[in-house]
């Protein structure tokens, strides 16, 4: 019989029930209950990586909030990109009405995603990461080819990133939210790819067409290797706490 449970006051149903409501209370339950080897390991695991910021990098954190902040970071990148697109030479002087209509919608959607995540992370009682500073190669916003190819890279990356990070989400409502957004990113990716090359809405570079026709999802560590090339020093992402 459990030494831990019998060493304190006689446990009641309420005592057993209450500590299971939230992770914080769960942790205090084990602290209160005393130090078996297993319980100690759990307490340590609960504290793992909380303060593991790499110098000069933005650590998205761990677990559900880590995934939300990771998504917030990627949405910041996309929102900033389309914001700059709309003041660039391609959009203001070259793009036709249809291309502008599409880029306007993508701008709205990504800015909405960005500020939604900031609000949702705050509402969840967690802290959003800071506003990130972006960097782009020269003349990114000047030509049709560079704008659309950069958009294609971001949208495809976003789809692969959400698909690859979903496995780290524990709450069904958060997973559902990620699902609501990733299909929008996929819709974006398809039309942008079609604008680049008609009929390339799926392609062997992003979907395993020769095999199972599954999107080729990417783990956070792979995604940030690309994303960080568009982020300034001090804004580069550290996703070591995920997975």
């Amino acid at each position, binding site marked *: 019989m459990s030494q831990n*449970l*019998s060493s304190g006051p*006689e446990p009641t*149903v309420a005592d057993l029930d209450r500590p299971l409501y939230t992770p914080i209370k769960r942790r205090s339950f084990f602290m209160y209950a005393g130090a*078996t080897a297993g319980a100690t390991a759990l307490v340590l695991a609960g504290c793992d990586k909380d303060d593991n910021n790499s110098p000069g990098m933005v650590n998205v954190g761990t677990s559900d909030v880590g995934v939300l902040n990771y998504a917030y970071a990627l949405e910041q990148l996309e929102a900033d990109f389309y914001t700059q697109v709309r003041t660039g030479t391609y959009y203001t002087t070259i793009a036709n009405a249809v291309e502008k209509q599409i880029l306007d919608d993508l701008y709205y959607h990504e800015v909405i995603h960005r500020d939604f995540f900031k609000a949702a992370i705050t509402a969840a009682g967690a802290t959003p990461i800071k506003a990130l500073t972006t960097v782009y190669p020269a003349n990114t916003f000047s030509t049709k080819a560079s704008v659309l190819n950069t958009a294609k890279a971001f949208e495809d990356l976003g789809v692969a990133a959400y698909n690859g990070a979903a496995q780290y989400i524990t709450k069904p409502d958060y997973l*559902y*939210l990620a699902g609501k957004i990733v299909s929008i990113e996929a819709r974006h990716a398809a039309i942008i790819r079609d604008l680049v090359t008609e009929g390339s809405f799926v392609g062997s570079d992003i979907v395993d067409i020769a*095999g199972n*026709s599954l999107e080729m999802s990417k783990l956070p560590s792979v995604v940030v290797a690309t994303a960080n090339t568009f982020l300034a020093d001090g804004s580069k992402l550290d996703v070591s706490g995920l997975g």
Partner: protein
Amino acid sequence: MNFLQILSAIEKVDPEVYDRLDSRRSVFKHMSGVGQKLTAAALPLFVGAVFNKVYAQTPGGLAVNDVLNFALKLEYLEMYFYQQRTALVGLSSVNSTALSLIATDEANHVKFLRNTLGSAAINDPTAAAFDFTGGKGSNAGPFADYRTNPVTYLALAQSFEDTGVRAYKGAAPISSVMANKTVLTAALNIHSVEARHASHIRAMRRGGASSANPSQAAAVSPYSTAPKSWISGTDNGGAVPGTTNAIYGAGNNSGAGTATNVTYLAEDNNVQGGVTLTTSTSAAFSGFPTTAFTEAFDEGLDVGTVSTIARLFTVTGSTLF
């Protein structure tokens, strides 16, 4: 016997054990014989009963193979539908190639799901299970000319793709799927491919069957014939208003085929994660069209509602959906 060590050991093989206990904490309250005080002698029995409850299939919660077979049914529907594309009249070569590409993807999804399920897979329903005219087997329903008329065909294609996106999205948070990371990731990797298809079919409908560059066609409100590549509001009832409205409507939030803590709302929903999204939610949203807040998020559907939609295209007597 050490209750804490048991939990800890289980957590090593099942990291979600605490969530299972948490989301089903009512078992503690409803377990008979523990109304007042849990005695030391009763604890082993109590613990055993708790785990039986937690790991048994939840009433209303589908097992992972049930969800995979549901996906397989939808993929069969799509696969047999795209096999019917060959008699379409007036397709440009780029549009013809695109439909072939989508047909390949859907056939690959069927193959993949069959391989994943192995002997648990349902039998192939065959093309005979479906009537894509919506005639329940009469082959003379409201979409009777779908095999030759690309307008009808693409209207159906958009309906099936948008339904597929909503179905995968709604099923992903079902607990048995979330608990299997391999299945979850694979399902999402199909989900996004369906969304790419949906986006492209919508572009094809904007441009028309003979267009050589469908992505360059303008979306025109109310979008029933020239839709955006994403769903705006409830899309005015979809490709065939009056028939396809349910594809953009609300789902059922209880019973089998729903996920815990998930509410299946209509596509015009603008409240996400408890945050109401309007032009005043953030200074950056100032001047945004109100439709943008619904376009920025797709919504999922429960298994039951998707089945009701799919049943429009099976023959009378079919028990597939």
